[in-house]
């Protein structure tokens, strides 16, 4: 599993690996928001938590279709399926690799972009915490979506349609964490719900992903 994780990380940072693509997309979307809604500080501060999370979510979506499609194209996927590594472990390794190349950079970059949206000073810690807690769920759900559409040519769009509705709970609870944090309210409830969603995704989705892969490999 570590071998697969290491290979995927290495592939991501090599030419054409797409590392930083999500991050750049996140940056550009956030920079565009003030152009669209105007420079009023109060308005920006109010929409900042939601905008940051929607942008992070779309950025995470960007690199999902490569997760299994590239391995399917060059034939690695059937070879992995016949290796001693169970497909569940393959799914988990792929999800973790996606998080390390997308979710983690987004989490680290978010505070800097919060400044651009005039995010309330009290919310920065919650923004980072909600991203750190929520983006692993995005990666795991995305890996599942990628496994569902792996056999389909140019399945990226279909995958987005499948995956985005599944992102809704993560978006609701995490944006709520940041909003409450910004207004100085208690964040324990949405934070616990977000943690629950992520823990559930980590526990259950590798099995669902492996099942989807088995069907698509047939």
């Amino acid at each position, binding site marked *: 599993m*570590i*071998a*697969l994780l*290491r*290979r995927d990380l*290495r*592939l991501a940072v*090599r*030419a*054409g*690996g797409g590392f930083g693509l999500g991050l750049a997309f996140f940056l550009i979307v956030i920079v565009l928001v003030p152009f669209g809604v105007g420079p009023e500080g109060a308005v920006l501060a109010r929409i900042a938590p939601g905008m940051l999370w929607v942008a992070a979510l779309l950025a995470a979506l960007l690199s999902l279709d490569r997760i299994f499609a590239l*391995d399917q*194209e*060059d*034939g*690695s996927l*059937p*070879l*992995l*399926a*016949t*290796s*001693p*590594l169970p497909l569940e472990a393959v799914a988990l390794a792929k999800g973790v690799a996606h998080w390390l190349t997308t979710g983690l950079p987004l989490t680290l970059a978010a505070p800097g972009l919060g400044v651009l949206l005039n995010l309330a000073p009290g919310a920065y810690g919650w923004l980072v915490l909600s991203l750190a807690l929520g983006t692993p769920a995005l990666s795991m759900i995305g890996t599942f979506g990628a496994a569902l559409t792996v056999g389909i040519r140019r399945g990226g769009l279909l995958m987005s349609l499948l995956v985005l509705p599944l992102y809704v709970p993560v978006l609701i609870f995490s944006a709520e964490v940041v909003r409450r944090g910004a207004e100085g309210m208690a964040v324990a409830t949405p934070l616990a719900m977000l943690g629950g969603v992520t823990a559930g995704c980590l526990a259950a989705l590798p099995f669902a992903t492996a099942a989807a892969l088995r069907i698509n*490999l*047939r």
Partner: protein
Amino acid sequence: MSALLRVQDLAVARGGRPVLEGVSFALAPGQALILRGPNGVGKTTLLRTLAGLQPALAGRVAYPEDAGAYASHADGVKATLTVMENLAFWADVHGRAVPEDVLDAFDLAGLRERMAGTLSAGQKRRLGLARLAVIGRPVLFLDEPTVSLDGFSVRLFTAFLRDRHLAAGGVAVIATHIDIGLDAASLDLAAFRARPGGAQGSDEAFL
């Protein structure tokens, strides 16, 4: 000697339509079997079924667990990894080390640090086949292993199969259209074509 790979009355389907039925053979350690038959007869489907990538319609396939390896038209070679990195990855996944002489055996020694994306089709094919020597599985299912190889490389590959793989007690099932110079039995799949209107649809059993 008892058989390492035993196939009994196997029926396979492609896209839910039965293509082969009643396929039976057994291979003792050190034996190879060449699958022959016209395009579309079901060689690839049979090999994928044997490798466990798709379920059989009927019949039994028996070989020790985690002993099988599959190699298809696609090599599973990553273009942005070097030749050595590609082999080291598969070795790692299988919990093994890359044997010292494997690069020489497949004439890849001079390409060790080359990016796999810059290899020619034949060189890439040799790298894909070298994976089989690296993972060291005893039961090989090979689908057209010699595509895009020149005569010299075919001989290298045959030498690997005969002197390393089969000599060490492995078995191999090989679908090929050319004579790879291996002393092995061959099986013409055209004789096992499924009768139209025979066993129907595979989906019910799995839904």
